């Protein structure tokens, strides 16, 4: 209405004004307005990730409507749009503060969610996510009060049940995938039983650790494994350093002995041959050869000696008077013939 701030409009004035307008026009305007409202109440858009269901007089019609422009009975049908194609996610034991290229997580932990008893009565700290889609929009909307809360409770119960049947070592290491897949299976079973309309896509274990106060000792085990490997490797290194070398040295010793043997045999054969050759000639003239050999040897030998004393054989008492240099052994040839005859 064109009500000015200062003008007070009593209803009489309004009705008077309205009566000035042709009646047909008013009816047309009302009809137009009604039509517009009707149109707004008849048509609705379903977004690409959504599906829609209708309640007619409060009851589900049984049909599911796909994305696009759809129509319904105005005022009587009520539309519920459900994002069935969107993948939804729930986090346990941690919260994403801001997702992105470098996702940030809240610094706070949620130990009441993540601490659980393992099957060997130890404690494990398990963080996990559940990815799910709404498979049945009707169930999701109308069968369960507060589906999200229910689903969250179910996930926790299921994860604890599965972890309760695994040892802490399994949960942390080799059992991870089995825990996740078992949890998914059991969770889906519960979802169906409670008619949540949820389809569990995936259960993914995130950080799975021993509880904070125990972590250091778990690391210690890993370190001790490294330590063991290291000391074994070290010993093998020493082994590999020493043994081949010893093999080489052994080879050397044997070769040397072989050399010695060859030398020894050859030398003796040489000596024998020499002796035999000499002997063959010696036998032809033993006496003269013996003498010759003796004299020749002494002849060769004497000039090499610095100190020579010749004494008459009768002067037996001279010996103590000799200055025998430095106590060196005297090589006296008292009786030259001693070697011979």
């Amino acid at each position, binding site marked *: 209405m064109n009500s000015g701030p200062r003008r007070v409009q009593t209803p009489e004035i309004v009705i008077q004004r309205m009566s000035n307008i042709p009646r047909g026009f008013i009816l047309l305007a009302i009809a137009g307005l009604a039509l517009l409202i009707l149109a707004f109440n008849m048509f609705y858009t379903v977004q690409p990730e959504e599906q829609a269901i209708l*309640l007619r*007089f409060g009851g589900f019609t049984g049909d599911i409507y796909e994305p696009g422009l759809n129509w319904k009975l105005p005022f009587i049908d009520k539309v519920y749009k459900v994002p069935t194609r969107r993948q939804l996610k729930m986090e346990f034991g941690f919260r994403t503060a801001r997702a992105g290229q470098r996702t940030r997580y809240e610094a706070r932990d949620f130990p009441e969610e993540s601490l*659980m*008893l393992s*099957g*060997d*009565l*130890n*404690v494990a700290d398990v963080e996990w996510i559940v990815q799910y889609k709404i498979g049945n929009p009707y169930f999701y909307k109308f069968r369960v009060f507060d589906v999200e809360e*229910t689903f969250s*409770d179910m996930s926790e119960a299921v994860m*604890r049940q599965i972890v*309760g049947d*695994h*040892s*802490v070592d*399994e949960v942390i290491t*080799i059992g991870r995938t089995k825990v996740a897949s078992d949890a998914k299976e059991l969770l889906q079973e519960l979802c169906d*039983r409670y008619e949540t309309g949820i389809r569990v896509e995936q259960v993914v274990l995130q950080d799975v650790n021993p509880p904070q106060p125990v972590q*250091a*000792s778990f690391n210690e*085990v890993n370190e*001790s*494994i490294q330590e*063991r490997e290291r*000391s074994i490797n070290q*010993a093998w290194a*020493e*082994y590999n350093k*020493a043994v081949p070398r*010893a093999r080489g040295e052994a080879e050397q*010793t*044997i070769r040397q002995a072989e050399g*010695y*043997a060859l030398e*020894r*045999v050859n030398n*003796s054969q040489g*000596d024998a041959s020499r002796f035999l050759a000499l002997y063959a000639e*010696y036998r032809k003239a033993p006496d003269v050869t*013996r003498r010759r050999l003796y004299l020749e040897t002494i002849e*060769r030998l004497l000039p090499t*000696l610095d*100190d*020579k004393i*010749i*004494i*008459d*054989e009768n002067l037996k008492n001279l010996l103590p008077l000799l200055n*025998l240099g430095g106590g*060196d*052994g005297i*090589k*006296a040839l*008292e*009786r*030259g*013939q001693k*070697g*011979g005859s």
Partner: protein
Amino acid sequence: MRSLGALLIVALALIFLAGNTLYIVHEPEQVIITQFGKPQGKPRTDPNIYVKVPFIQKVNRFDKRWLAWDGDPNQVPTKDKKYIWVDCYARWRIADPLKYFQVVRNETLAQSRLDDIIDGETRNVIASYDLIEVVRATNRTFEVTEELKGLVQTEVGAQIKTGRDQLAREILERAAAITPDFGIELVDVRFKRINYIESVQKKVYERMIAERKRIAEQYRSEGQGKSAEIRGQMERELKKIRSEAYRTAQELRGKADGESTRIYAEAYNRDPSFYAFTRSLQAWEKSLTSDTQMVLTTDAEFLRYMKQPR
């Protein structure tokens, strides 16, 4: 103009009347009609549009969906005297709205009745089982990594007879036997969280730490043992190699010595005295050096002719 106003008033009155006569039961609801507080007829559970007597009859709406019950964590001792926190959840629904309406009237009251019943049964059931029965659902043996084989226990000593699932079912059965008195159907009870109370948890942590330390020690000593073994093997190998080489060498030498002795003996045996003679000559040449002082008497063979040239 008057007639238009009257029409308007009549229309409004009609709408008001219709609004009080017709009522819709929506999908997640069920309805009980009361007349001056007294329930009339059967509860309406199918969603549709219905008629009632206006103004006199009142519509009471109840939820038809699965409803949640989430208990507070309870500190409960198990049969083997381990103190744990148990946090259960349950699913229930209003199965008999009439009774529900008469006995508990609203959800707040219903929840508090469920608190009493389920908490109590939880206590009873937990207290009559060992902790292991509460934690484990099956008797599966644990898989163990290669690294921990033989170092950790693969199964907890006691085998379970009942198990987590069955315990929850027991609580459910006991509680579900009572809830129909309130018009409530209990469909599931589950353990949401089970945790040690703080003082027990501390002890468990200590045990875990001790266990890991033991494993670490075992690894370390295993490493030391293994490396000692390798070193020992190395020593043995070295000794073997060296002694074998020595043996072979000595054998070779001995054989050669023997051979040479044989050769010498064979040759020198032809004339031992001649050998002794020539060998003496050789020995002199070798052993008498320039610093040797030699005293010769004239009766030596070499000087034989010095005194008697004939």
